């Protein structure tokens, strides 16, 4: 989040611990691709690594 520094009204500073839009895209992307797409993919007849279970 970009905020105005109280001491320097014209100077942009960053609150490095604030939530940023890119984090939301990232979290949604990870959940979607790892869990949703990963789950759909797991049902396909791919070869199994070393003959071991997944």
């Amino acid at each position: 989040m970009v905020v105005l520094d109280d001491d320097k009204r014209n100077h942009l500073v960053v609150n490095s611990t604030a939530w940023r839009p890119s984090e939301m895209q990232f979290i949604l992307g990870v959940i979607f691709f790892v869990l949703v797409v990963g789950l759909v993919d797991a049902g396909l007849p791919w070869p199994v690594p070393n003959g071991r279970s997944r």
Partner: protein
Amino acid sequence: MIAGHFGFAAAVKAAEQETPLWALMLATVWLDIVFVPLFLMGIETLEPAAGLAGGYGASIIHADYTHSLVGAVALSAAFGAAFVFQWGLRSGVVLGLVSFSHWALDLIVHRADMPLLPGDVGHFPRLGFGLWQVPQASIVIEALLVVAGAWLYGRAARSVSKAAGRRMTRADVASVLILIGGLGVLVLDVSGILG
């Protein structure tokens, strides 16, 4: 870059079919996953690039541990090693390399903000080719990675389905999800509408 990493992982699945896709997807963003808690603790930070207000590709990212060259190698090696016992050496190496591919792809787009050593020890010149300075170009590259990844994955998924005498439905659904999901994440990333 977010969507491009997922597209790359999907393309790898087409070639390394024994490695589960979910693990490849996790590997491709492993450095960023480690980045998040460090970011929330204020150890790694972001700031808008000079003259910009932040947004897609408009930040200087001080990920001096997770996105340093040596840090990325160490995190990727640890990620791959964690899967060797379960899935064997080949899958472990593949997952480690996919994890490191994150650093390699980031190198193309980042402004010169990626240090060689963790914590920027030694203050060596930072790395980054800065394609984000031409956001249209980086958007096109991300979109191409997603489209190529979805296509290559879909082709391989249909092939194994056909070989096993299965219907193509699941293969098609998975590849369409990769395409739509990837492009959707890219649109969200570029537009910042969730913010």
